């Protein structure tokens, strides 16, 4: 910047875009995804020590669609991620930066496991699952609503608050596990009770169905309910919300309750339908990934379903690539990181326009300099 002569117009200026055709916006996004995957391929070629460039692509697809098991995993992982993404979407739509989904879901897991620990084997499995659901929801809602109350009342920074709540939740889980497992191994084994029934002999089907139902429900909620509408208005402009008589504080708290309910559902699915147990890392960073996924999907449930799927696709595919090329488990995180950077960065080109210095001016400049 400093070496440009002061007497010249800047090389380019950034201008805010008022509108952009939907097709063009999606074109930019798809372009970003394609570039990200290409760069992922290049990075893997470099890190993998000159492995064939094509291995990346074949490995990617094989890892996702290679076997029926992998395809099922793809949808199971998509379902869990989408469920958490659905949970964070309402708050983010309202511009409430809840980055505590990790902790909220973990509390949901804890809720279910508490129920299994104390009621398991004593009541019918169906009712057990119902009670698990209620407990999960209750735990998650508490976790979600505490920062909301402080935000509504004192405008306490919700980003930092929810972030801290994550770690408190993790410690709580650790405490409970030590309380339940006297050996001190810190690992709670899988539990026999409260497991979801198999559907068609397959484990994850019920998870996928429940999340699909939740996604449709949330879509309807956003689109057709008064509450969903109020969330949008508060998110877009608090002034307008006040103008039409919306109680902003109430909306904040109510929306975080909803967020908590969905986190509770995710917790239940993780315990009852996936892990049959709880650990400090049960959520495995998906609380954070879900935020990225939801943000990329613009908080619209169908789009989020797609972005979750895309993320899991790349993650799972990259895992396979890593195995094929012998690059260790962490390789997918690098590839998904690159994916996120590009998809996040491309939003700039949707919101802003880069205006270059007009050519004509360039031609004039020397003349002016001579004249002066």
């Amino acid at each position, binding site marked *: 910047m400093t070496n440009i002569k*002061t*007497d*010249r*117009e*800047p090389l380019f*200026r950034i201008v805010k875009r*008022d*509108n952009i055709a939907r097709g063009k916006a999606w074109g930019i996004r798809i372009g970003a995804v394609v570039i990200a995957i290409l760069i992922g391929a290049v990075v893997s070629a470099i890190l993998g020590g000159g492995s064939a460039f094509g291995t990346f692509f074949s490995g990617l697809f094989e890892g996702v669609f290679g076997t029926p098991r992998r395809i099922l995993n793809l949808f199971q992982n998509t379902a869990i991620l989408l469920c958490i993404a659905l949970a964070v979407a309402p708050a983010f739509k309202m511009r409430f930066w809840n980055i505590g989904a990790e902790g909220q879901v973990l509390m949901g897991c804890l809720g279910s496991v508490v129920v299994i620990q104390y009621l398991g084997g004593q009541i019918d499995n169906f009712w057990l699952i119902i009670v698990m659901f209620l407990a999960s929801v209750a735990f998650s809602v508490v976790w979600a609503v505490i920062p909301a109350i402080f935000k509504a009342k004192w405008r306490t920074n919700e980003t930092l608050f929810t972030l801290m709540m994550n770690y408190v939740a993790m410690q709580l889980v650790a405490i409970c596990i030590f309380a339940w497992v006297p050996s001190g191994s810190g690992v709670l084994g899988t539990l026999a009770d409260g497991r979801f029934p198999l559907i068609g002999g397959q484990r994850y089907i019920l998870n996928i169905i429940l999340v699909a139902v939740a996604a449709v429900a949330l879509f309807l909620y956003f*689109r*057709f*309910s*008064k*509450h*969903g*509408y109020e969330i*949008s*208005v508060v998110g*877009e*402009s608090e*002034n*307008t919300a*006040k*103008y*039409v*008589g*919306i*109680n902003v504080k109430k909306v904040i708290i109510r929306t975080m309750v909803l967020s908590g309910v969905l986190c509770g559902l995710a917790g239940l699915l993780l315990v009852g339908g996936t892990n049959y147990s709880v650990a400090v890392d049960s959520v495995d960073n998906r609380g954070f990934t879900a935020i990225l996924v939801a943000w990329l999907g613009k908080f619209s449930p169908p789009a989020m379903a797609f972005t979750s799927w895309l993320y899991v696709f790349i993650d799972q595919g990259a895992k396979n690539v890593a195995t094929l090329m012998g690059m260790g488990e962490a390789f997918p995180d690098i590839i998904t990181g690159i994916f996120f950077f590009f998809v996040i960065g491309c939003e700039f080109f949707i919101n802003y326009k880069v205006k270059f210095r007009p050519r004509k001016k360039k031609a004039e400049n020397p003349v*002016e300099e001579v004249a*002066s």
Partner: protein
Amino acid sequence: MAKPVAVQMKGISKFFGEVVANKDVDLTVYEGEILSLLGENGSGKTTLMNMLSGIYFPDEGEVVIEGEPVVIRSPRDAYRYKIGMVHQHFKLVDVFTALDNILLGEEMPRYSVKERAAELKEEAAEPRYVVDNDDAEAPVKTVRATDTKAGRAKLALRTAVLPVVKLFKKAQFNWLPRKRGQKAREIAAKYGFDIDLNKKIYDMSVSEKQTVEIIKVLYRGADILILDEPTAVLTPQETEKLFDVLRNMREDGKSIIIITHKLNEVMEISDRVAVLRKGEFIGAVNTSETSIPQLTEMMVGRKTDLNIHRGDPVGCEERLTVEGLSFTDHEGVQKLKDVSFTARSGEILGIAGIAGSGQRELLETIAGLLRPSKGTIVYHDPATGKDENLVKKSPAKIRELGVRLSFVPEDRLGMGLVGSMDIIDNMMLRSYKRGIPVKIDKKHTVNVPLILDRKRPRQLAERIIQELEVVTPSTHTPVRRLSGGNIQKVLVGREIAAAPTVFMAAYPVRGLDINSSYTIYNLLNEQKEKGVAVIYVGEDLDVLIELCDRIMVICAGKVTGIVDGRTTDKETIGLMMTDSLSSENSEEVAND
């Protein structure tokens, strides 16, 4: 005009999307003068000055300083050309002291190692003359410091340490000692500012903040000072004080540009007046050779025959009685002072006044968005005949009481509508709380709460698009993408559709073209004929006079009079707007 030119703007244009903020403006500022930049609200004064101070970059045109075209890309560049601006919304960091705000962003005095080295070399090469008494032929001998080895070594050493010296100077400049800001204090003393520079900004009154801003600009060495609406927030006494300071500065040879729309102040303080209208430069005149009526005409344009149909008032029952309303904003500025008036059904009550005189606050207080400190707002319900006091009730509560109050706010996209939502969803802002109608049998329908009804809003949207000729690709286009006129039609259409008994509109035609404006005027007249009490806040006096039955004029939050629209004229209103009619206009304004 014998004074030298300080800065010249040539053919400046600036566009925001499709909005033309400035079009081909030429402006010349001379040294040692106070220039008023006069224009109505939205005429592009601030935008023009923002381009001089580096906040915006002009789309066309050039700025000329000392005969050379210059490019101002940022406020830093502006300071380099000795241009400083005091913005209307102060640019101060609240948690800093005044002094730290003044020191903010100051650049180190230039220190170039290369130039210093050249200087040293020159100095060393300077011939010194030694009178040599022994040498009869050439008693005067030229000796240079570089002649000796020691001299050369000394020069080399001095040159070599220059970067270190620079680094040291840099460090020294960078250090903020506890006792800092002597220069700022001197400036404050020189121009007669009375202020404690160690006070935190958040503890300061508005006028103190303004003082800090002015000192800041002077401290940065500005010779051209731009003040955006400097008196808007000041009491008359504070204004007087400010003017004294400005005169001091003029004596000092500084050029001062005041952005304003207050004519009496223009006459009092400025040497010259430049007028902008609708983004275009109208002309510049010497204050001594002009008059308020001439300036008014330049500012608002020639009287045109508007031909707005005005029917006689119908019915005329009292609908809204406002009594002794006062409001103080969160900065402690009293925006409304004891405002009383009555709005009657079947007539249009116009509100005239300089922008920012409390019009917005008045309407928002009535609508329940702001809480007044004093006074009553009584609504006389035509259906039940009951009176309701609306003070301290939220908009939702007012609606629940059955009060049919429609309000077209000044900030269309920031308050009246949601820019990113489509027309249908914007229609729902008013109606969504009703829920969806479900037929239980042939005659009865029940509104199911919680679920949105998009059918009626869609019908409404389609009706508005058709009746008001809204140009839009579809009902699903986000309203932000519509043009200003169409946005306003959507908003006004929605508010009218609520079948109001009181209809308030703040600057409903601002930024609209002639045709859209007329659509709005006709809509207001229709409402009036239906027996609605219409309150219209406008800025174009011609329109106010042609459209309104009665016109209430406010100045600095006070009602200066209510006149009949059929008998009054522009001059009277103009004088009332500046409160020049009442004999004692120096009433103390509570501040902070």
